[in-house]
């Protein structure tokens, strides 16, 4: 049974359940004072005579005006813009915008507060792309599809030129290079039908149908939901030559292949910083997913951007089950908060480590400790330095740091700044140090008394009844039975929640000096579902 069959069965069953007389019951329940009186238009003969006379006068006097009016208000050409925002512009023969319509919510956001009707096409296109860049929909290496629907070739060429000028003006203003593909349509009945069914632009529909025509194993309904960049990515994976579907704009040398654009951005950033950045493929490994999985996903977005002077890879990809978003430092592969996480962090107080600890948690402010750690550049100090700072702080107050265990460290964005949260236990006490990621200042230290026999049961469940990430990491580390501190200070730990399958699990990966470990920890029970250890032939790449 396919999903579609199932949908149809559910719908059919539901329809049968609705009683036939419900509407009458509803109407009967509307209070009388709410029932509108139907307005009956009176028909008086003299009114008809007057109207007829007026019509004759208008017809005689206004034929020319009417023709001009019709020309001005008749749609001559429709232009679809697809990035993820999907927008259709209708213009008249004089290139004046008659209407602009958004096909999705991103499109609505782009058009928010823009009044484009009666403006020249070029000006409207510039305003739309200004808005797209400002609202984060278009950045370096974004893929844009422009579709012009007009039967005349000369007219299409002219419109395309105006659009290019309009886009150029906006992108140049923001110093952004994007890849623009052009598609022209003259016969598009099938695309119109498909677009109507999926509420997407005709341009995107034509592109999708063109792909399916070249590779019939593709699912058009599924593709209809993809961003244009994802469609281009699928086409590339399936060996479909995009040039058969669209024309790349060759007028501007900066607009070309997406991979080339990304490479240019990377080289620019490397020159600026004077260091070598992670390659896109290396950055993908920092998501923690294996190569097979990453080869199967479809990338919607893979861009190099800057966050507080740190070059980051912004990734969005789709598997059959879910959408994944990552912001990964192009310098060291550490994770930074995504836009959604930033939003959540400002919308509500960040969840702090003490919430994962048993009752009796206390907090005290520690004195500032000068550090001698070396920063990668002038940004984050790195996990190793953060752990050193935390351990040294405990040493100074007389703790026996030789007994420290269950150490974890993670980068956390609290809505205002990034901090490292370093957690470890020494005997029956759990310490969490919050350390400013930029300069190593200890912001605060939390202390909680724990019992090794109770830690497994006293951690409150998350709202999904899943164990927390730190708990999953600890379970995996304990199971590996290795020296936690030594490993964590040298290498990054990756962990992900996979909740799209029947058995939700945390995937935890880490390396010791000689072995790479890959765990799957049941997200509800904490049971080890899968354990794999692979000998390392070379020291692992990462933070060392």
């Amino acid at each position, binding site marked *: *049974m396919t*999903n579609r069959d*199932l*949908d*149809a*069965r*559910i*719908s*059919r*069953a*539901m*329809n*049968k*359940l*609705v*009683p036939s007389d*419900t*509407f009458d*019951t*509803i*109407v009967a*329940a*509307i209070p009388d004072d*709410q*029932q*509108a*009186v*139907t307005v009956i238009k009176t028909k008086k003969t003299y009114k008809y005579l007057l109207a007829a006379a007026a019509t004759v006068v208008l017809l005689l006097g206004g034929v020319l005006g009417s023709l001009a009016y019709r020309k001005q208000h008749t749609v001559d050409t429709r232009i679809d813009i697809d990035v993820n925002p999907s927008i259709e512009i209708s213009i008249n023969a004089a290139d004046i915008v008659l209407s602009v319509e*958004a096909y*999705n*919510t991103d499109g*609505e956001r782009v058009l928010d507060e823009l009044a484009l009707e009666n403006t020249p096409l070029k000006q409207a296109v510039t305003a739309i792309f200004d808005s797209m860049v400002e609202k984060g929909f278009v950045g370096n290496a974004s893929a844009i599809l422009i579709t012009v629907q007009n039967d005349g070739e000369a007219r299409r060429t002219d419109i395309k030129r105006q659009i290019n000028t309009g886009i150029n003006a906006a992108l140049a203003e923001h110093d952004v290079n994007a890849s623009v593909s052009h598609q022209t349509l003259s016969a598009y009945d099938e695309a119109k039908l498909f677009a*109507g*069914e*999926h*509420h997407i632009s005709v341009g995107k529909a034509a592109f999708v149908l063109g792909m399916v025509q070249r590779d019939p194993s593709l699912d058009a309904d599924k593709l209809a*939901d993809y961003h244009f960049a994802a469609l281009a990515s699928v086409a590339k994976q399936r060996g479909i030559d995009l040039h058969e579907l669209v024309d790349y704009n060759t007028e501007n040398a900066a607009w070309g292949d997406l991979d080339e654009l990304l490479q240019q951005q990377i080289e620019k950033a490397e020159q600026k910083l004077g260091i070598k950045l992670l390659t896109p493929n290396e950055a993908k490994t920092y998501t923690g997913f294996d190569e097979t999985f990453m080869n199967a996903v479809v990338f919607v977005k893979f861009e190099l951007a800057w966050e507080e002077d740190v070059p980051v890879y912004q990734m969005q990809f789709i598997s*059959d*089950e*879910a*959408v*994944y*978003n990552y912001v990964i430092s192009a310098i060291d592969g550490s994770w930074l908060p995504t836009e*959604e996480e930033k939003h959540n962090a400002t919308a509500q107080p960040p969840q702090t480590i003490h919430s994962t600890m048993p009752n009796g948690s206390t907090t005290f402010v520690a004195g500032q400790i000068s550090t001698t750690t070396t920063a990668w550049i002038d940004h984050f100090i790195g996990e190793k330095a953060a752990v050193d700072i935390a351990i040294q702080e405990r040493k100074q107050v007389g703790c026996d740091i030789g007994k420290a265990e269950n150490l974890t460290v993670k980068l956390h964005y609290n809505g205002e700044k990034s901090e490292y949260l370093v957690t470890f236990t020494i005997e029956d006490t759990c310490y969490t140090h919050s350390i400013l990621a930029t300069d190593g200042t200890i912001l605060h230290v939390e202390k909680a008394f724990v019992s090794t026999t109770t830690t497994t049961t006293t951690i409150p469940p998350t709202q999904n009844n899943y164990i927390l990430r730190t708990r999953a990491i600890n379970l995996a580390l304990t199971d590996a039975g290795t020296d936690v501190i030594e490993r964590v200070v040298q290498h990054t730990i990756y962990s992900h929640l996979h*909740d*799209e*399958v*029947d058995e939700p699990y945390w995937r935890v990966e880490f390396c010791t000096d000689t072995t790479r470990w890959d765990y799957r920890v049941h997200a509800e029970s904490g049971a080890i579902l899968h354990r794999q250890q692979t000998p390392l032939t070379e020291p692992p790449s990462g933070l060392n």
Partner: protein
Amino acid sequence: MLLFSLNTDAPCAEAPVVDALIRRIGNGDMDAFRSLYDRVHGNVFGFALSIVKNPHDAEDVLQETFLKIYANAAAYRPQGKPLAWVFRIARNIALDKQRRGDRVLPLDERRTAAQYTVEDADDRLLIKTLLTKLTDEERQILILHAVSGIKHREIAAVLGLPVGTVLSKYHRAVKRLKIAIEEEMDHDKP
């Protein structure tokens, strides 16, 4: 079957039509009210059922939703997502009904009422499985998608969930439902 197809296709492709209908209802146009009801009552009922879990309450929600649509249509401001507006009304009423503890009898016990009889054994099994084997959110997402035909991102807007969550829950719900149905069918085999 043809009627069903028209119903499920209507929401996505005809948002402007539904927008216009709501505006007309705001002016007291009963024909528009009837027309809107014909278009979306199955969707609203299915969605309500996914929350309140019995057809009697679902019909109550359907009635209250349309009364509220009628009362509020004049204040409606078109934003291109009229169904999201309709479903939000339905959801609020259904959740309110749940909170008040208005729930009546479970499906099996109400099936004696003629108007809710599901004659087809397969349909009966499907509805029973839907109502018993899925979480509330999974059921709402599945029914919104199956009955209303609206896209995952619109479902996300109606339920206030991230699109990724809707996607993963939808796929998980489909998987669970298929397995549950197969198990039930195996169980029923002599």
